[in-house]
């Protein structure tokens, strides 16, 4: 112990280093954030979301289901993990999340804050069949007619949709059952509802597998009211070729031909204004994501000259993380409380977030690679959002990944919320923050430009729109800027015009009197092409020569005169 102080110092230094290292060893996101620029090129961006936690059966405290004192005892053999869960639903009023735990034939109720289990339902009392069979869809809402929480379960293998109220933490009681419509219009042999969704009037919409004419719609009383919002057939070369063959084929041949039918959509969600959003899984440009009004008409119709794009824009994209090319396969979508649209891509595990006007906000999430990193997703089955969090249900890893927005994400969302309300000036501060964190964020420049335009700072607005390469808004701003310029310089412009007119009038008057202004400009016109073979030019040539001789003679005479003097 020669140098106890030194030793102490070195130890403490080591400790400090170790501590600071553990502090700075910040877990990076398992994905690369990117966004698309105006030319549909992917450009790097900041992360708008980071992985907060992953929640498996253990974290949900599913062991409570085996504990008689736990409050929601089911049985001693209740599975302790999720098994290929297919759907999520969030009840914002009750602060609950409901999970359709498909392969375990049950529906779970979780507390939204902690994601711990508060209820488990393997069946519904008072209905034709007691137990659930592979329920793939769940939807929770507050019923306006009953005035309490109701749960809609797409009980797939039992061919029904059940509407039930919660009576205890393990008991659901049936309100109504929606079964296979016995009507001529419904032509499918089976009725296997996969997803379910309910509007304010308590009409029930359900996506049924192998029904491609839209979702099946029921009234509250359970009457089949038709199909809603069918997709269109995507026009491909094969479809056109078949259309041509059909024109010349005989009846027998026609029978043998396959029909071109639209692709059924994979999932849907309803926003608070009652618009139903659908998403179609198979790579399709025609109806990837639709916003349907109550009549079933797609508001986001690309055929009307707009261009709504969803998912990865390059079609098939190489991902360095998984070392393979992906084809976008949009599987689920969610409308957040503030109207943002989260679209889940099954193929890449990415969530594409859009604002109300379909502007891309951010892209986050990643598929599980060989190194099974926390926060990556193997089989993303459902996406839901609440407040600043986005939940992704993984059907293969049997967990829920919770994403929480970063500071950057917070600024974007605030800015977009204000921007979409038209409060451009209020959004300025947030856009500034966004630009400070990511100078490539195009929408920020559009936002700042619109703010500048609102405040009548035109040249600044033009600059912003140019940076964002937003030609449409630039055009608008330019119109105002030009009007303002003309207004400001009106007198000067008039004076200049008057001066020019006066100049020409004066010139004309002077011309009449034989005085030429700017005459030197026209002098050269008199030149003659010497090499011309035409006689007239020879004449002028000789004329010119004569003139020259005459001049020489004159000069000679002058000289003689001078000599004479």
């Amino acid at each position, binding site marked *: 112990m020669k140098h106890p102080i030194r030793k102490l110092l070195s130890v403490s230094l080591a400790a400090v280093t170790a501590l600071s290292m553990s502090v700075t060893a910040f877990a990076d996101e398992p994905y690369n954030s990117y966004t698309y620029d105006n*030319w549909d*090129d992917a450009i790097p961006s900041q992360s708008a979301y980071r992985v907060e936690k992953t929640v498996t059966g253990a974290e949900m405290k599913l062991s409570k289901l085996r504990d008689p004192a736990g409050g929601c005892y089911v049985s001693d053999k209740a599975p302790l993990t999720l098994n290929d869960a297919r759907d999520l639903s969030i009840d914002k009023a009750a602060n609950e999340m409901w999970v359709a735990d498909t392969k375990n034939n049950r529906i779970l109720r979780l507390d939204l804050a902690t994601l711990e289990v508060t209820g488990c339902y393997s069946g519904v009392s008072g209905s034709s069949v007691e137990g659930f069979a592979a329920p793939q869809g769940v939807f929770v809402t507050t019923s306006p007619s009953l005035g309490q929480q109701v749960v809609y379960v797409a009980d797939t293998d039992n061919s029904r949709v059940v509407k039930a109220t919660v009576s205890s933490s393990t008991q659901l009681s049936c309100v109504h059952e929606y079964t296979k419509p016995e009507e001529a219009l419904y032509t499918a042999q089976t009725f296997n509802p996969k997803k379910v969704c309910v509007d304010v009037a308590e009409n029930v919409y359900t996506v049924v597998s192998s029904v491609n004419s839209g979702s099946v719609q029921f009234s509250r009383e359970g009457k089949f009211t038709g199909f809603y919002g069918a997709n269109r057939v995507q026009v491909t070369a094969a479809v056109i070729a078949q259309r041509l063959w059909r024109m010349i084929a005989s009846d027998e041949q026609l029978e043998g031909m396959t029909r071109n039918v639209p692709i059924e959509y994979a999932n849907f969600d309803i926003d608070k204004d009652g618009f139903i959003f659908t998403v179609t899984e198979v790579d399709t440009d025609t109806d990837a994501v639709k916003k349907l009004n109550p009549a079933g008409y797609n508001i986001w119709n690309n055929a009307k000259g707009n261009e709504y794009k969803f998912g990865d824009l390059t079609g098939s994209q190489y991902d360095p993380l998984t070392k393979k090319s992906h084809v976008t396969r949009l599987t689920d979508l969610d409308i957040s409380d503030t109207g943002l649209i989260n679209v889940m891509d099954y193929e890449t595990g990415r969530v594409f977030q859009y604002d109300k006007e379909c502007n891309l906000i951010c892209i986050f999430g990643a598929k599980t690679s060989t190194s099974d990193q926390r926060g990556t997703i193997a089989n993303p089955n459902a996406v839901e959002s609440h407040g600043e969090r986005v939940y992704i249900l993984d059907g293969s890893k049997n967990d829920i990944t919770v994403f929480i927005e970063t500071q950057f994400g917070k600024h974007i969302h605030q800015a977009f919320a204000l921007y979409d309300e038209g409060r451009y000036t209020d959004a300025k501060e947030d856009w500034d923050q966004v630009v400070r964190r990511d100078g490539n964020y195009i929408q920020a420049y559009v936002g700042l430009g619109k703010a500048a335009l609102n405040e009548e700072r035109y040249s600044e607005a033009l600059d912003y729109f*140019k940076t964002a*390469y937003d*030609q*449409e808004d*630039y*055009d*608008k701003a*330019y*119109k105002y800027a*030009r009007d303002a310029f003309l207004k400001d310089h009106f007198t000067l412009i008039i004076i200049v015009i008057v001066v020019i007119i006066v100049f020409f009038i004066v010139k004309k008057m002077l011309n009449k009197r034989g005085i030429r202004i700017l005459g030197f400009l026209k002098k*050269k*016109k008199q*030149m*003659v*092409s010497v090499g*011309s*073979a*035409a006689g*007239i*030019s020879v004449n*002028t040539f000789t004329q010119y020569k004569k003139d020259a001789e005459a001049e020489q003679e004159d000069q000679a005479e002058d000289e003689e005169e001078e000599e004479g003097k």
Partner: protein
Amino acid sequence: MYEFTPMGWLKHCVFHPVEGFEDLRWKKQGSMKIALVIVFLLFVNMVADRQLTGFQFNTAYVKVFNVVPLLVQSVVYFFTWVIANWALCTLFDGEGTLKKICIYSAYALVPYIVCSFISIFISNFIVEDERIWMTAIYYLGLIWSVVLMIQAMKAAHQYSFTKTIVSMIFTIVAMLLILFLAILLLSLFQQVYVFGYSIYTEIAYRIRG
């Protein structure tokens, strides 16, 4: 009759679509220098169209600026036109020489170049709603040039109207052929080069041991 400076002759041809080129031919006028300047201006016009069109009308991909395609679209196309037309019309009793065709074609392009310069200029001062002015001026120049081109070819070869049109259509076909062969030749030579280069590296390695 007419006596003009070379520039005066150009003006005469442009503003007298019906007999301008006939006069030009009759008087054995037309300057190669001016023709080459016009072709160069055509190229400048291409560049200006891409770079100087008003922001709200400019659809060019601004991340990359490559002058080669513009050069090909102006100068190379023009000379291919001249050569193709000469090659074709020599076979079909055309009286035009290569030089004549070059000069006359260049003169015929003047309205197009001038009008697109004007439309590029005004595109900086108008908004989307007034695009019609830009388009109108551009097409005015284009149609005027097409009319002049027909007259120019008619005068150069002393063809009837129908024969001129037919010869011009076939000229375009011939142009495509020439360009196709040129590309073919280019890729062939590239392969020859690669072949030569690989022989060179092979020998170089052997010599080094």
